[in-house]
């Protein structure tokens, strides 16, 4: 149960963005990609998620739980993403936003129960019928994470997920997100430019210019 990057190398018009990356992230571990903007960390993340812009060429291998996913389309990789924005669908209520993430094989009554329990666990009990725009920034961030995790991803990628939150909220949401990843016991890769975002004791990878 881990996410492996083997000799991952990204080039644009023959120029390397950074030295080849070798990384194995264990279940429950949160590795952090650090570096100033423009160093290619977001590009690396999009290569792992499967949304790499075709102007880049990718070599090397990406494996999730031993299965190679390097050339699979994004939707078939079983990798969840936490974006900078919450990206909750504004025309659906909170309950539907969460139910959208549940897998098809879960029967109806259980779906409702799972959504209810997820909300409860985030201190948002009874929020099913609420309009996403009526939630506070912190509440939206939590629902967004719940939605990513309800799809039962094999790994989670996070692209500057806290950068839009204000200082006091940041710490709270960070703790919430990190504890959830530990509970789910999945590998996670975090991209950030803020050293304060790094989880205590987690590995930090600085991308070197090749």
């Amino acid at each position, binding site marked *: 149960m881990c996410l492996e990057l083997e000799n991952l190398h990204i080039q644009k018009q023959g120029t390397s963005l950074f030295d080849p990356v070798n990384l194995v992230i264990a279940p429950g571990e949160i590795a952090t990609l650090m570096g100033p903007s423009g160093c290619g960390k977001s590009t690396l993340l999009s290569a792992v998620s499967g949304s790499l812009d075709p102007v880049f060429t990718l070599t090397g291998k990406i494996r999730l739980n031993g299965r190679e996913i390097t050339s699979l389309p994004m*939707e078939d990789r079983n990798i969840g993403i936490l974006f900078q*924005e919450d*990206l909750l669908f504004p025309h659906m209520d909170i309950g539907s936003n969460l139910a959208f993430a549940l897998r098809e094989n879960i029967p109806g009554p259980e779906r409702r129960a799972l959504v209810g329990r997820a909300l409860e666990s985030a201190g948002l009990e009874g929020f099913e019928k609420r309009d996403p725009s009526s939630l506070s920034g912190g509440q939206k961030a939590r629902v967004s994470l719940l939605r990513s995790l309800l799809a039962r991803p094999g790994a989670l990628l996070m692209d500057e997920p806290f950068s839009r939150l204000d200082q006091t909220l940041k710490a709270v949401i960070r703790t919430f997100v990190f504890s959830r990843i530990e509970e789910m016991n999945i590998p996670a890769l975090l991209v950030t430019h803020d050293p304060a975002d790094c989880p205590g004791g987690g590995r930090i990878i600085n991308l070197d210019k090749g």
Partner: protein
Amino acid sequence: MLPLTSLGKSGFFPVFIMASFGLTLLAGLLGTVLPSLDYLPVIGHTRFSWSPWQEFLSYPGIFSSIRVTLISGITASASAVGLSVFWACCAHGSRTWRLFEKALSPLLSIPHAAFAIGFGFLIAPSGWLVRMVSPGITGFSSPPDWILLNDPYGLSLAAALVIKEIPFLVMVMISAMGQLDMEKTLLAGRALGYKKEQIWLKILIPRLYPHIRLSVFAVIAYSFSVVDMALILGPGSPPALAVQILKWFNDPDLSLKLVAACGSLFLFALVGAGIGAAFLMEKILGFFLAPWVVNGRRRSILTRLKPLFLLPGLGIMGITGAATLLLVIWSFARQWQFPEVLPASWSLKFWTTGLVSCFYPFVTTLLTGMAAALLGLVLTIGCLEHGAGAKRKGTRNLNTPVFYFLYLPLLVPQISFMAGIQLVLVVVNLDGSWITLLWSHLIFVLPYLFMVLQTTYLSYDQRFWDQALLLKRSYFPALFRIKLPMLVRPVLFSFAIGFSVSVAQYIPTMVVGAGRFSTLTTEAVSMASGSDRRALAVYALLQQALPMIIYALALITPKILYYNRKGMQV
């Protein structure tokens, strides 16, 4: 008098549009309802009665007319909406989609009548499609007696309508997409394991639909009440209801104007029912599909059917291209017998005679189109300046109600509304003047100008405007020397759209012009019944070429004006 300090402060433009559109709509309503109740003093009917209605309902073939309208109208609007939606789901982001996007302006600029004529040349029993396979496959040495054109159910009319309506709906969808975070939504959906087509169906279409709803209603109104295309492609007798109304209205027997008024109201009710049905359908689908949206199914049958749904876009471009090409070939043909695929001999004769005889209608078309587009542009910019000013100062923005007034004429059958106005104009002795003709065109030009210009105009960078005001120190120099020159591209583009809408108008010219004005459109439509195909092709091409030339000028002018300004290039 306009305040000379600022168009923004003044509510003149929005109030003028609301008042004049309101009055026009009211006149249209009065001029329809009163005659339908046997009240029309100009022809001596002053006592209310139901007799026009009795005559309407007992008119020979009336129910066949209603049936044609219902069948062609429902088929056309339902297929246009369905195909646009599925085409967007499957094609968006593909190469075909980008090609279609580039083809949109030329596709939209083709007047309905010109397209209908070319489409007729293509699908007629003696048309290109049959010629291509004759006598090789079919063995025909003379045209078959199939009823491909002017079929009794109006299906060829419906097909042509679908081809004309899809580009319009796609254009509206594209501008709505600009207001949604499409790419982000697709990423979020795919990160949850959903196929692209399924995200479109489950998330994006429900979000887009509210933005295109009014345009769907306009498509319904148009499909139910189109006259020029129905004259060319629809059944002859009994014709579609809208065509029958025009016939009654233009009949020398003046009492038939009362029956025409009943027909207008009836058509109005049919359109109302159509729009109501679409609204109901949206709610019902929304209700019953809500559980399907969240059932977790990530794959869609559309993913496998994708190649099939790429066809509508390719088909539209192909058929429109072929129809245009056919017009060109016919216009230069001398002898072209069935089943030859190309003419046996060529001639410039029809161009030389056509170019001479078209002079008067050509000038009317050009002047009316230019005047309507220019006037429309002034009114639109006036309104948008008011909107920008109101937004800035936090005062009341009158443009919100204006939008509904502007859209109303597109949701009402054109023939119903115009016939009513014409009767009122006769009463007040203003009928048949060029000014009223211009106004009748402007009513349909203005909504499109507004739709096209609004978004870009309101997103003009406010900081440039602040600088302009600071430096120029007064409003009009800042507007004319800085803001409008910077917005020259969208302004000229919307002018071209307005012009093409005016060129395509058939009913306003026929009805409000009171037969005193002929344009390329009215000429082409009247020639479509029985004239020489070669002479007809020349007129249809002229009608099609005029808006395209204006489009081309609108695209090229900014490039020439700013050839040495990199910041003004796209």
